């Protein structure tokens, strides 16, 4: 009984202060400000700085929402690698399955924030030059042999030195 009474008094107090002073408000004010100033826009989808233009995302997209377009000025990322195409994303077609994100090599191989994310790519900057020149470490012997089998004779010679 006493417990109930305390509970009621507390509830009444809470609600009166909610009514009079708007305490405990849950509405997100930053979001309100953003919306009122029209700042909620579609997030940037492709982070062109970290994309290497490999086309994996366009390949895997089940609804062809990504097309690779040729760049006017190809970018030389490393000595050997020139980025010639970049992905263009069509939000109207996308079904947000994140296949592209999950298969982007920046994410899949290097574990860095993916260069593509149909929701929030954020401003993750990746130093591509460094990234691409980083040696890929293969820990597993069996896996190493598999990779070796795929390579041609010349490349094998180069890698002969072992892991």
């Amino acid at each position: 009984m006493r417990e109930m009474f305390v509970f009621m008094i507390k509830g009444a107090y809470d609600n009166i202060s909610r009514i009079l002073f708007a305490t405990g408000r849950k509405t997100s004010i930053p979001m309100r400000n953003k919306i009122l100033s029209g700042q909620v826009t579609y997030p940037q989808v492709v982070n062109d700085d970290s994309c290497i233009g490999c086309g994996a995302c366009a390949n895997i997209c089940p609804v062809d929402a990504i097309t690779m377009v040729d760049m006017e000025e190809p970018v030389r990322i490393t000595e050997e690698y020139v980025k010639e195409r970049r992905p263009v994303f069509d939000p109207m077609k996308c079904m947000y399955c994140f296949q592209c994100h999950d298969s982007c090599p920046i994410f899949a191989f290097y574990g860095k924030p993916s260069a593509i994310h149909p929701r929030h790519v954020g401003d993750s900057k990746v130093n591509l030059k460094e990234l691409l020149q980083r040696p890929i470490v293969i820990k597993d012997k069996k896996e190493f042999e598999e990779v070796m089998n795929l390579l041609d004779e010349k490349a094998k010679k180069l890698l002969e030195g072992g892991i």
Partner: protein
Amino acid sequence: MNWPDFVLATIFVPLIAFIVSTWVPGIMRKIQARIQQRIGPPVLMPGFWAVLKFMYKERIKPVSPLPRLFHSIPLIGIVLMFFIILLTNPEWDGVLGLTTLVALAGLIKVEETLYIVMGNLSDNIMSVRMPYPDLVSGSVMKAKVRRNFEKISVTRAFKLITVGSFPLYLGLFVPAVVAGSIGIMSIAKYQGFEIADFTLRGMYEMNPLILTVPGFIGAIAYFAGYLVILNEYPFSIMHTKADVIEGPTMEYASVSRAGYYLMREITMFVMSSVFVTLYFGIPPTLNLAMVPHIILAMILPVLAAIASAFSPVLTFRQVYPLSLGFSALGVIGVIVAIL
């Protein structure tokens, strides 16, 4: 009778009520929003801007057997409310012998029945008229008639009015018993109201009924009745948003929708104003008394907002016992008043 005063009061008291009432839904909504821990709409939006907006919408012929009558119901409601507030006005005291609680109760009764007429005249799209081929499919049971939910609303409104408005009438009755008169002004005067020398300081010397035991009990009964007649949660049984039955007001569009909104607002204010006249002894009149009157008249809507934020819609399973309880309370109030 003082003719200039009479004319002025007849014009301006309803006008003031009208203006003030556009704030009422917004205040109620804001309070609910605060309880719900959110910002909620601006205070003027639901009562004022929404009404104005509807005025500017395209006029549509409602789907109704008698569109003209259907459209004019809100207007009738508004006029009724004007009369009610005039009857509680000191300048009108004694006009045609109308300024008694009996006349008041009669007008309120008419207002209630408007809902019934409304429901019978409306046929909205969410129900029978929805283009959906389901007559071919079928339950084993084939019913004879297909009814839309307004028609059921009507039945329910009827029931609700018969059982649910007892508390309201008892609440009206208690002051009469205490004051020993059914004249509205004599009830106010009994509580110490004098139109000629009303001052804010003088208010302290009045003995409002609500501070007495029978008055308090009667006020509670009146509040319950207030919720019922407004169809406000928890008694919004005939037009809740999410119930099986949506109310008979669904076909109102554009101007007549604005009219319906106004009718609701003004009902909220006027019924509360009647309460202030009867239980605080301060009638609406064109002098200083108007200020405390309006402030006090916000009490019932505010309480209603709080009550409806914390209760589910009740069905007849709860309405019957509750309204019985409130009626019993009202009766107790009357008995205490007689003693």
